[in-house]
Structures are given as C-alpha cells and as structure tokens.
C-alpha cells in the first residue's frame, strides 16, 4: 500500500477511515460468509448422508418415518438391507460385471491413447495437425449419435457362440472408443510439454521409439495418465446409458441392475438405498484418494 504514502491532504484523511470501515465490514462479512458456507456444505452433504442412513434402516422404518429420526432413535440402525442385498446373486454378479467392464476399459484407453498421443506430440507424419483437429472435434460428440449404428454393427459380429451385442466386450470397446478423444487430447498436451532434449538424448543413445515411449514418455506422463485413468474409471463405473443399450442381463453392471429394480420406487428403498450406496462408495474412495489428479483432469478437460 505504498500508494497511501504518496496521497496528500484529503486523500490520506479519507484512506484510514475507509480502511477501518472496510476492516469492520470485512470481519462482519467474514462471519456471515463462513456461516453461509457452512450451510452450503451441509446442503451438499445431507442428501448423501440421507442415502447412507436410509440404507442402514429397515424397510418398515423407511416407509413409516424419515431417515433423520435415527438421531432420536439410533436403535433403528441395522445392516439387514445390506446382507439381504449381498445375498442376491444377480446383484453380486452385476458388481463383478462393473469391475470387468471398468478395469479393461480404463487400461485400454490409457494404453491406446498414450500411443496415439505420443505420435501426435513427437512423431511426424502427413496430415498430423489435421487429424488431431478431427480428434478434438470428436470430443463433444454425444454418445446418442452412435447408439443405433453400433447396435446394428455389434449385431452382425458373431462367431463361435460369441455375440458382440450384449457382451461385456462390446460395452468395453464402446467406452474405449468414446473415451479416446478426450484421452488423446489430454495426453498429447502433456507429452508435448516434455522437454525435447530428453527425447533427443534417448534417440541419440539408440533407443527405439517403443523404448522411448515405454522408458521416457510413459513414466514422465505419470500425473496426466493418473488424471486420465481416474476420469475414465469414473465415467465407465458410473455409466448407465451405454450398458442399458449394449449389455444384456448376464453382462449388466450395477447401474443397470439397480435401474431395473427401480420400477416401484417407494417399496424398494431397502434394495435401492444400499445398492446405490455400494455403487458410489468405490468412485468416492477413488475420488478422495486421488483428488489432486482429479482436479488436474478437470482443469485440463474443460472441453468435453
């Protein structure tokens, strides 16, 4: 605030007064801001808390009173809904299907997109910039555009008792394809920022492009690859629409199974509440464990 020293006469007389007023207002405002933000935080927490508590009550309790009554009668809490749910084989199957879809879809996107991003960042080939623009353009394509044609395409792929339509493989490939534009975009920008000297040095030492990719780019790309991996994991884990169209009952993930239980909502809280909570606990754990990379991904990925 050196400017105050140089302001003469009436200016310097006014400045301290404004300073005090501002400080008082700031302190009062600070208190109000804190109070508002506490309220907002509660607003954000209460709905999820409600689901958790509802999942820990019996169906009879849920149908007769609100979940908040546990604060006066904690005796309502029970794990019976969870044990009943985990006794249902189709729910347990759907949990494993979610894992079987999510893990390959994440790994494949990371590997395939890293390769492509490396080519876009460090290899020269005709039409490179043009092709990269196409990839960026594909970022925003709604999944809806591809549902009908891919369903037809999958319907034609059939061999040795294997049917693409309805299979986990089909769901995985669709997720990979639609994850690629963002993945390539994110990784290319990160790889392009790697110092040229590192690559040149590796090439000088006689490393092949594959070696450079595995030994230099992939390890250095760690943070970006982590962001991408988390994003892709969450997208695929949380997807409903793609599985709704492409996965049959044997291949359905938790989201689709839960949706099928939703026909009569009110009578089904004992299935929906614990099911929804089990389906969100994994992404939430991933989120809290890796939130730093998650934020980085959001900042990089504000194009989708």
């Amino acid at each position: 605030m050196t400017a105050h020293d140089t302001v003469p006469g009436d200016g310097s007389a006014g400045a301290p007064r404004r300073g005090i007023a501002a400080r008082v207002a700031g302190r009062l405002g600070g208190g109000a801001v804190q109070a508002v933000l506490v309220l907002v935080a509660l607003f954000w927490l209460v709905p999820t808390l409600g689901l958790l508590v509802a999942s820990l009550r019996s169906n009879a309790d849920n149908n007769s009173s609100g979940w908040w009554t546990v604060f006066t009668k904690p005796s309502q809490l029970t794990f019976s809904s969870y044990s009943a749910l985990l006794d249902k084989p189709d729910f347990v199957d759907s949990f494993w299907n979610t894992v079987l879809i999510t893990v390959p879809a994440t790994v494949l996107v990371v590997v395939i997109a890293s390769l492509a991003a490396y080519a876009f960042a460090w290899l020269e080939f005709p039409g490179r910039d043009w092709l990269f623009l196409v990839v960026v353009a594909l970022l925003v394509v709604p999944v809806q555009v591809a549902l009908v044609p891919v369903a037809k395409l999958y319907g034609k792929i059939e061999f040795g008792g294997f049917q693409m339509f309805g299979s986990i493989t089909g769901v995985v490939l669709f997720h990979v394809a639609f994850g690629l534009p963002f993945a390539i975009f994110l990784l290319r920008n990160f790889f392009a920022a790697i110092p040229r000297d590192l690559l040149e040095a590796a090439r000088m030492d006689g490393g092949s492009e594959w070696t450079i990719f595995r030994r230099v780019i992939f390890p250095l790309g760690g943070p970006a690859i982590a962001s991408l991996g988390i994003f892709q994991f969450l997208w695929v884990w949380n997807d409903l629409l793609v599985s709704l169209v492409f996965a049959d009952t044997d291949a359905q993930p938790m989201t689709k199974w839960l949706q099928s239980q939703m026909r009569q909502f009110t009578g089904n809280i004992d299935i929906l509440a614990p099911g929804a909570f089990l389906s969100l606990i994994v992404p939430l754990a991933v989120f809290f464990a890796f939130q730093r990379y998650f934020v980085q991904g959001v900042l990089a990925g504000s194009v989708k």
Partner: protein
Amino acid sequence: MMAPREDTPPATAGAATGGAAATGPDASTGRRDGLRPPSWLAGSFLLPALLLLGFLVVYPIVYTVVRSFLDSSGGFTTSNYTGIFEGHGNLLAVRNTAIWVVVAPTLVTIVGLLFAVLTERIRWATAFKLVVFMPMAISFLASGVIFRLVYEQDPDKGVANAAMVAVHDAFSAETAYPGAGPRAGAAQPLRAEGGAVVTARPVTAGSTALLPLLRVKPEYLPAKPVPARAAAPPGPGRITGTVWFDFTRGGGGRPNAVDPSEAGLPGVRVQAVRDGKVVASATTRDDGTFTLAKVPAGPVTLRLPAGNFTAAYGGAEWLGDTLITPAIIGAYLWVWSGFAMVLIAAGLAAIPRDALEAARVDGATEWQVFRRVTIPLLSPVLVVVLVTLVINVLKVFDLVFVIGGGDPNAGVLALQMWTESFGGGNDQGAGSAIAVLLFLLVLPAMLFNIRRLRRERK
C-alpha cells in the same frame, strides 16, 4: 490410411533403432535429421486408436445421419425430423431441453462463481471445495436415487418437504384441526358456513361466547392437552370466549358446556365479523380461551375461518407435473457446481493481484472491483465453463431417467432418443433424427473448442 510417404531422406527400415552416431544437430530446427523416425511408425502408434474411432465413432455419425432420412422400409423421408416436433411427449422433451440449456448452465456457473469468490478468503476452503466437488464422482444413477429420497412427497419421509414444513411452521405458528366442525342439528350455538364455522346468533361486545367443536382427531390434539376453561368476564368493548373439544372421554359430560375433563383447543383463529368485514381477531390460548379487544358496539358474528380446518402445509409437490424439471435441475446443480467452482477458482487464482489492488487504491468498492475488474478478466473462463455445461446438459440422460421415472413431463431429447429407438419405441429412424439434432446442437461448441485450440497453439 497412413500411407508411409517418405519425404525425409535417410530413413531406412531399421531407422527405428536409429543410426545413433548419425548427423550433428540441424542448426535451423534444432533437430537431428538422421534421428527423425519414419512416418510409417506413427501409423503403428495410431492404428488402434484410429480403428476404434473410425468404427465406433466416425462411421456411426455418418450412418446415423443417413438413417435419420430413411423410413422403416428404407425409402427417403424427412418425417423423422418433423416428428421430433409432433406429439405430446416429443414437444415436452423439446421444451424441457430448451429450459435445461438456458437455465442449468447459467445457474451452475453463477453458483460456481459465488462459491469460488466466497472461498477465496476462508481457511477451510479446501475442505469446502472437496465437499461441493464430491458429487462429481457419484453416478447420475446414484444421485438420482439420492434425490428421489430428498424429493419424497410425504414430509415425514422426504427431507426437502420436511425442511419446508419446519420453516413454514416456524414462521406461521398455526395449528389446524382438519375435519373438526360444529355439532350437527338445529338450535346449536355454531354452524358450518363454507369451510368456516360461525356462531348461529349474533354476539355483542361485553359478552362471553362458547364455541364447542367436535370431531377433532386425536393426532391433531396437543400432546399434553390443557383442560378447557370458562373465559374470564369481558371488559367493555371486548368479547371473551372458549373454543374447546366438547367431548368427554369415556362418555358423560354436557353438550355445549365446558366440562372439566374436556380439552381446550389452542391456536384457533377467531374473528369478529360485521357485514362481511373482520372487525377484530384473536387466537386461542392453551386452555382454549380467547379475548377479542376493541370490538365496536352492535351485534357481530364470530367466525372460525376455514384455515383452522384445512390440512396442515405439506411442502411442495417436487415430482409433480410442474416442478419436476426444476427439481431435476436442482439435482444437476448439486452434481455440477463443484466443477464450475474448481475451474473458476483456478481462473481467479490466475488474475494478477496488481489489477485488483490498483482498482482498490483508486477507491473502488469491493463490488466495483468485482464487477469492473474481476468479471472481465474472468470472462474467458466463464465462457469455457458455460460452453462445457451446455454440451453436458444436452447429453443429460440418467438423472432425468432416474428422478423422472419416465414421466413425460420431465422428458428431454437425450432421453427421448433412447426411448424412441430402444426403450419401447423401436423406431430407429426417429431416434436417429433426435441424435442428429443433438449433434447439430453441440456443433457450435465443437467449433468453439477448435478455435480455442488453434489460438492456444499460436
């Protein structure tokens, strides 16, 4: 597709392993020509990605556009497109999508901006941001289940209505006795009139009135009823009286007289009416007694207005015809505000402090600084957030599907596309047309992204 076209000289088949000790640095580009990998190699790096994108994204776009112009027998038609704007369900979906696109991104951006600015000066900003950001990790399906619970109609089960009822009751401490009314028959002191209850005979200032009610349901009685009491004698210009539950448990008791075991009804509003105008009003005490002050001379009618007998306030009908789309947008706000907040907070952190300080030194108030300096410097970030949200809103499917539960009043295009082509409609032409429309709607965003990218490259 990646023709191995070579325009740089020394690339041999073994160039991948490279002539390690080849040429020296190229002065103009800083590259070592002999180390530049051949371009066919790029093809092998790109192949898996291009295959997948080609078969599952690019080809389907072309196919969908073609399919949208075909009828069920394969002939050319435009009726798939005109069909989007016909029929009740489709029209609602178009209208709701318009509402979503206008309201949701704006609202989320404003809330995100608010949070980003407010958290700038608090110490627990990280914790706050984590809490608001958390729903981004939760699926729309789980969020949908969460908000179905929140929006439950019955205030005893849905937390939104429970909160609304609690707030409502805190501001208007009214008690109501639904179903209560006067004793039937002639020659009774009270009679029903519309939804209200009035005295059969006029009352004058300086007298006492007995207003017995029947059919009060036990759940609406106070938890600890106070025995009704005869009212104190009135002073001049006053009317006193008692409103009570004229029913003695276990039988006995005299009709239209205050018996010791009968309960007073607290919180009943009593009005003195003359020529249809209210001239005095009061509310009964715990023992059911009331005092009307400043009653003008002459006969008046005592009235217990209908509000005393209507059911208690039950909150809003969140998932009814009119509120369902705003309610789902509310859930969307819960999920996406964290995204807007994080992006805008990053933008805020990048604003040069000097600009703000300079404005403050020049005597600008905080509000002026915010409007004239912060917002303009932040506008590129705000535009990015808005565009991203518009794209996202156009694709919103799960949340509407789960909370709306198939209610056409909640429908949006992204959901209608699925319904038409898979969820029972089985009309893939109509579904394709809706998909193409969605695609056209995101095209401006696509161009925006490409332009932004090009500018950043330069």
